[in-house]
């Protein structure tokens, strides 16, 4: 087991390196020179040169010990992300944003998982019936509506017109208040795809031999579902659930943007539009690390849940 873990950890190194390389290439090589923009209006060539030195932009790109890429690499590994364009330490920004983001995504996540798994069980038990077909249709319909429309309609009707929720984030609201509507919308929008997936998983299981045997033995549907199908369907379910966790940290980019929730997603969108590469690099790196870590956890969970899966 330990050797497996070590091997997997080793494998994450090239991935992390790959992510760092990608962000570097994207934002430094292709992204262009931001020093002119930092310098502001009426800046002389001198000031622009100063800025380049300050931000290390005048160093060679790759082939030196002190190159930009090495520095990029170093700062990532030591988690020293430096300061953003507005001089605030990036760690500070991240710390501030994590709370609101998690307050949004975690309830949404739980809501979606619990509701869709439960509903999938229900739908699987009535498979083939009119309810099943209706459920599938509703799911597909839900998946066909653009995410943005969900948000806009939700915001317009539930908040603006009927005043059930606050329209927008405001510092004097409690977290529960300003997160409620976005969470609801997020769950509504995410149910369709998830329910369909879990239903498919359940149905696939139900087609297998052992289930047919169970039915032949005379067990009723409910018992079959809960005792056998659910357990075996756990593998794909867990995969999906655990792999979704790293993305919880980034918040929901769209929901945060719309409702003004000051989380990491909002931070990302701002950083992208203001070309704040320092922030973008830091956040991308962190999410990649999280992703890689959770992949490892998933694989370990696999082995725990299903002894048939060898740790190769």
């Amino acid at each position, binding site marked *: 087991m330990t050797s497996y873990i070590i091997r997997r950890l080793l494998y994450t190194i090239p*991935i992390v390196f790959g*992510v760092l390389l*990608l962000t570097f290439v994207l934002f430094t090589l292709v992204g262009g020179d931001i020093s002119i923009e930092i310098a502001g209006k009426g800046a002389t060539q001198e000031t622009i040169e100063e800025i380049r030195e300050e931000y290390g932009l005048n160093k060679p790109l790759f082939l030196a010990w002190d190159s930009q890429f090495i520095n990029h690499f170093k700062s990532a590994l030591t988690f020293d992300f430096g300061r953003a364009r507005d001089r605030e330490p990036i760690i500070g920004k991240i710390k501030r944003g994590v709370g609101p983001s998690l307050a949004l995504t975690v309830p949404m996540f739980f809501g979606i998982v619990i509701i869709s798994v439960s509903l999938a069980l229900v739908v699987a038990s009535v498979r083939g019936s009119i309810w099943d077909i209706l459920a599938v249709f509703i799911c*597909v*319909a839900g998946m066909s509506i*653009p995410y*943005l429309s969900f948000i806009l309609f939700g915001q317009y009707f539930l908040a*603006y017109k009927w005043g059930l929720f606050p329209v927008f984030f405001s510092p004097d609201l409690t977290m529960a208040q300003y997160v409620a509507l976005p969470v609801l919308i997020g769950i509504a929008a995410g149910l369709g795809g998830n329910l369909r997936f879990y239903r498919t998983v359940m149905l696939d299981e139900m087609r297998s031999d052992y289930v047919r045997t169970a039915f032949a033995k005379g067990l009723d549907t409910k018992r079959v579902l809960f005792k056998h199908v659910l357990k075996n369907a756990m593998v794909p379910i867990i995969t999906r659930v655990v792999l979704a966790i790293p993305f919880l940290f980034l918040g929901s980019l769209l929901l945060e943007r719309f409702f003004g929730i000051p989380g990491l997603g909002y931070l990302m969108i701002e950083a*992208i539009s203001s070309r704040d590469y320092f922030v973008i690099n830091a956040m*991308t790196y962190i999410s990649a690390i999280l992703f890689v870590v959770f992949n490892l956890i998933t694989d370990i969970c696999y082995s725990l849940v299903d002894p048939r899966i060898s740790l190769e």
Partner: protein
Amino acid sequence: MSDSENITRTHLPKGRSLWRDGLRRLRKRKFAMVCFVVVLIYFSLAAFIYLAEFFDWRIGPTLWAEQVGPSYAPPSSVNYLGTDIFGQSVCRKTLYGTKISITVALCASFISIAIGVPLGAIAGYFRGVVDEIIVWIYSTLSSIPYILLILAFAVVLRDKTIFGYKITGITAVYLAIGLTSWVGICRLIRGEVIKHKGREYILAAISYGCSERRIIFKHLIPNVFHLIIIDFSLRFVAFIHAEVILSFLGLGEADRPSWGAMINDARIELSRGVWWQMAAATAAIFFISLALNIFGDALRDSLDPKLRIQ
């Protein structure tokens, strides 16, 4: 009975290829065929608009910039879907938006298939170092959240000049989407190729000295082609939605009406009570997505060899 009669009466059943069989099963599902027709309608509309623009016909959608009524007029018998801020017809804008969305989704699909399929096949077939590298590339790409990746690419690619060709807004969009979405199909193809590689017919081909290129292109890819088709139909919807999000974030086609831009405008308009632009764009996206989803599902079921009825 004579021997000749026996011989003429026994004949081998006609072999049914996966495609023939699939098509037959598909045609049986009436609802799916209706959806296919809907999809065709959208595509034809887009093609029609291209033609109209090329030949400079002045009808309907190409005249979206014409002022047909006062600013923000609600839907009426004159303007079925109302007007926007400049008095332009929302109906025409929605129809025009079809061209943009279909183009983006099509281009992005081609790019992602053009990258994903060859890479997946090569990785699956040759294994070894080549495989490791390709897997490394797509693992790296998939560890970054999708929206983030697309956003980052779109922002960075904008206004850049590559090989003398300037990348405009909408081109950046489908380049960004295409360059980041090939991972799924690549994985799929790679998995299938690995599976097929061990099959007898491939081993046979290798044994009689078939060149690798021939094996990949004449044997393997045709056998996984149905997966490509299925992936294409399901991805298409995702690409349309991605264009909407990118337009909303200000990265899409800014000069011409697109569904994403209409929804973006709607954000402010809704507070004024102007709901028709939003409704029109959402409906347009909804129907194509629904149709493609259902058709794609049906396609998948029809082409699934496990479900073949013998």
